[in-house]
């Protein structure tokens, strides 16, 4: 990996005088350690990899995480700027190349996901800023022959008494200093940037159409390819005829790749017409029999049996025997596509000893490794350029590097630089879906309505099974992501006799993490069931939850704040009803109150009040935006989202049959943040899980009907 580091360094040095603060390179042993994924070297970070200061005073922050809407383009620079003492307006931002220096501080690979970007960089990016500040101060102090402790950094300058020099003026000298072995970070009470609502640094470019996404990448001689992929999971090309495709004006080549047949052309439209003209005979294989109706019946039968034990306590059957009453219900959620607004795509240019990739990716390290294998190159010969991601939600992080791997195959076979473009239909039918889940809950309550026995059986396909992550993520037959949010649920844990069981049936369908992963289905089931228990006990759903959560202050904090801001229990406009739900995920607690009306079979969500406790909040504006977005994302799933298979084929293809929430349906969303000095949690995902049950609970309040299957249908 030293070659990649070397490349970085050359790039830095080439960009002219005074440009970098030349931090010493991390020792190679540390890089190797990072590369083996065991543990990323903890502080001090290799600040050179994260920060450049130009003679023109520009401060460039390199992101170890991909900007996909969640706001790291702003949040990570805030962490640097707070410690560095630069002028916020001089900040520029770039995605980092793929290299071990940018490995996730917890996961040992360069990746974006799990709502981890901000908290996992909280120390590293602040340290980078502090190290640079100390070196700039040291350079100034040496020049002025004063004690460094008499200097301080302020708005892009080092100041000492009446003396003042800009960071740009000091950069060249600072580059020669030895970085400090340790730095002191600011006390949060002295923060001037962190914790303050800060507008996005990428907003202007994005509003003006200047932001470059993967699909926008242009290179000299770049061709466009569309791939005809298997119509059912596991199908293989038996034979194909390309004559008609090749006859289309602009088509340059038709090549077979492992995923199908690629039509390579001068432009998108030629590639599309060429692909339409392909004649392919497929060997469909067993995937042809796939049917979601059949799968649901199988899942339902499985839910009647115990499954692998994910959590258990007490004596379940004794608990049920002692119960005054037992409630039982099944909750179901369907397969879903992520449906990022930017369809999947990847650009690859192969040349002697080099593979350049442009991909909006959440998984640089994986992409680099898999591309190197396909191209027959060393890891450091694969360069990954990350443009903006037009939405991610987990879809741009496949354990197989699905999109990148295919594009490398196409470029190799075509012998030319190629951009593989997925149409919307390709994207929707390309697999890697949020799995379908069916859960059976059986809860026994005592005479006061409190649970004494809680049995939850989860049925659905494992995301981790068969992947590189399986050894870490699957323990004793339990994929932790299948039961996340249930295994540690305060309701389950608070019930003396409980058992959480898991069935992980295998199907040919490729499945993947989808914004907030297992928490969507577990929160839907638990928060619906708790509402059912409250109503069965004749208690207010808010009061009932307060009692069950009395020993969980952070749950109570968001629950009470959301209820208060929503005016829970107070009169509502005619025809409006409220439902409440809360869930902890990714280290953050979120409660939501949904205000709905029902007219005939039409459900309308008017207003959502959200309370979030994400610990120390780095950018309240960003957290609010993520809650708003998470709620709309969850509402699309609650009201519209469903993928179905019949005879092996996905029945949906585009936004007409896989609808998204639109402006006229979108509720107003109010976000309230609980002040906290606890460790930061995530923001990108935790807004999603509570919304479906909050709406289900509001629908029950409005109609007396309990909807236990997503998407909601009253008719």
């Amino acid at each position: 990996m030293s070659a990649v580091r070397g490349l970085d360094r050359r790039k830095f040095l080439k960009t002219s005088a005074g440009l970098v603060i030349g931090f010493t390179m991390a020792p190679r042993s540390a890089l190797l350690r990072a590369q083996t994924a065991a543990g990323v070297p903890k502080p001090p970070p290799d600040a050179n990899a994260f920060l450049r200061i130009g003679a023109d005073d520009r401060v460039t922050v390199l992101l170890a995480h991909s900007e996909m809407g969640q706001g790291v383009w702003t949040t990570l620079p805030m962490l640097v700027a707070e410690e560095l003492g630069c002028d916020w307006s001089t900040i520029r931002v770039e995605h980092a190349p793929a290299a071990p220096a940018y490995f996730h501080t917890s996961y040992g690979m360069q990746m974006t996901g799990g709502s981890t970007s901000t908290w996992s960089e909280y120390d590293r990016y602040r340290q980078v800023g502090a190290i640079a500040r100390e070196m700039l101060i040291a350079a100034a102090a040496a020049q002025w022959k004063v004690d460094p402790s008499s200097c301080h950094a302020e708005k892009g300058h080092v100041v000492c008494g009446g003396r003042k020099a800009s960071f740009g003026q000091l950069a060249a000298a600072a580059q020669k200093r030895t970085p400090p072995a340790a730095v002191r970070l600011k006390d949060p009470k002295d923060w001037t940037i962190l914790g303050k609502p800060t507008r996005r640094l990428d907003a202007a470019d994005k509003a003006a159409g200047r932001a470059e996404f993967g699909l926008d990448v242009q290179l000299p001689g770049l061709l466009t390819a569309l791939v005809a992929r298997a119509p059912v999971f596991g199908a293989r090309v038996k034979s194909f005829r390309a004559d008609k495709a090749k006859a289309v004006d602009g088509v340059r080549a038709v090549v077979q790749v492992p995923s199908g047949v690629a039509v390579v052309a001068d432009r998108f439209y030629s590639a599309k017409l060429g692909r339409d003209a392909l004649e392919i005979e497929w060997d469909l294989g067993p995937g042809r029999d796939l049917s979601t109706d059949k799968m649901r019946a199988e899942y339902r039968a499985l839910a009647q049996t115990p499954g692998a034990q994910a959590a258990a306590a007490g004596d379940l059957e004794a608990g049920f025997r002692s119960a005054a009453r037992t409630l039982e219900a099944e909750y179901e959620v369907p397969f879903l596509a992520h449906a990022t607004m930017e369809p999947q795509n990847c650009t690859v240019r192969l040349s002697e000893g080099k593979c350049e990739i442009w991909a909006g990716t959440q998984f640089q390290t994986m992409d680099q490794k898999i591309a190197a294998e396909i191209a027959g190159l060393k890891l450091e010969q694969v360069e990954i350029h990350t443009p903006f991601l037009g939405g991610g939600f987990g879809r741009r992080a496949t354990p197989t590097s699905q999109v990148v791997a295919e594009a490398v195959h196409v470029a190799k076979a075509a012998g030319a630089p190629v951009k593989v473009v997925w149409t919307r239909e390709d994207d929707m039918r390309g697999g890697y879906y949020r799995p379908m889940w069916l859960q059976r809950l059986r809860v026994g309550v005592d005479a006061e309505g409190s649970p004494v026995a809680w049995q939850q059986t989860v049925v659905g396909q494992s995301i981790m099974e068969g992947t590189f992550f399986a050894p870490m993520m699957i323990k004793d037959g339990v994929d932790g992501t299948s039961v996340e949010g249930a295994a540690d649920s305060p309701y389950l844990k608070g019930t003396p006799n409980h058992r959480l069981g898991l069935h992980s049936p295998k199907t040919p369908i490729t499945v993947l993490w989808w914004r907030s992963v297992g928490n969507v289905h577990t929160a839907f089931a638990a928060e619906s069931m708790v509402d059912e228990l409250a109503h069965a006990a004749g208690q207010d759903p808010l009061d009932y939850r307060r009692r069950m959560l009395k020993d969980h202050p952070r749950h109570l904090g968001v629950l009470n704040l959301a209820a208060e801001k929503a005016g829970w229990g107070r009169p509502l406009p005619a025809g409006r009803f409220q439902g409440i739900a809360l869930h902890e995920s990714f280290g953050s607690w979120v409660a939501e109150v949904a205000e709905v009306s029902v007219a005939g079979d039409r459900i309308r969500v008017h207003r959502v009040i959200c309370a979030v406790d994400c610990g120390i909040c780095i950018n309240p504006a960003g957290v609010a935006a993520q809650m708003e977005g998470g709620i709309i994302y969850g509402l699309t799933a609650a009201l519209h989202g469903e993928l179905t298979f019949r005879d092996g084929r996905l029945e949906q293809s585009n936004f007409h049959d896989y609808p998204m929430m639109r402006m006229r349906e979108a509720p107003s969303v109010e976000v309230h943040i609980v002040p906290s000095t606890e460790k930061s949690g995530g923001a990108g995902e935790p807004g999603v899980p509570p919304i479906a049950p909050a709406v289900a609970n509001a629908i029950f309040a409005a109609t007396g009907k309990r909807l236990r299957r997503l998407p909601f249908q009253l008719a």
Partner: protein
Amino acid sequence: MIELLVNGKRHVLNVRPDTPLLWVLREDLGLTGTKYGCGMALCGACTVHVDGQARRSCVAPVSSVAGKAITTIEGLADGPWRVVEGAWVAEDVPQCGYCQPGQVMAAAALLKARPRPTDEDIDAAMSGNICRCGTYQRIRAAIHRAAVPAEKNEKRS
């Protein structure tokens, strides 16, 4: 040969007449601010103005707009409607940002037709544009902000 008038500039192009305008803008003219999202006029990411009206360029054959005045997001910045982009920044609208050029173009077309749109006007004009990141309420706020006369706008920001 097809003659196109894009952002005030004349282009003579040798392309198939049924090629969607979107791909001519993106591939022949390098105007990549106009986005591909669905190819079926279902998401609005490809919205441009043709003779001042919002149009989905992904389903508009290039021959159908020959000689007409086409404005893309890149051309919006040169005119009075750049106020819309400013409102987008002030309301911190974008997240992933992919749909936003289309949203801005749809909003600009709305504001041309209705300088002070109501929420109902916004629902009607903007519901053809999908934002998967869920920025709708900020888009609504940004449209109202852009609709406010310039002197008030300065006071507000």
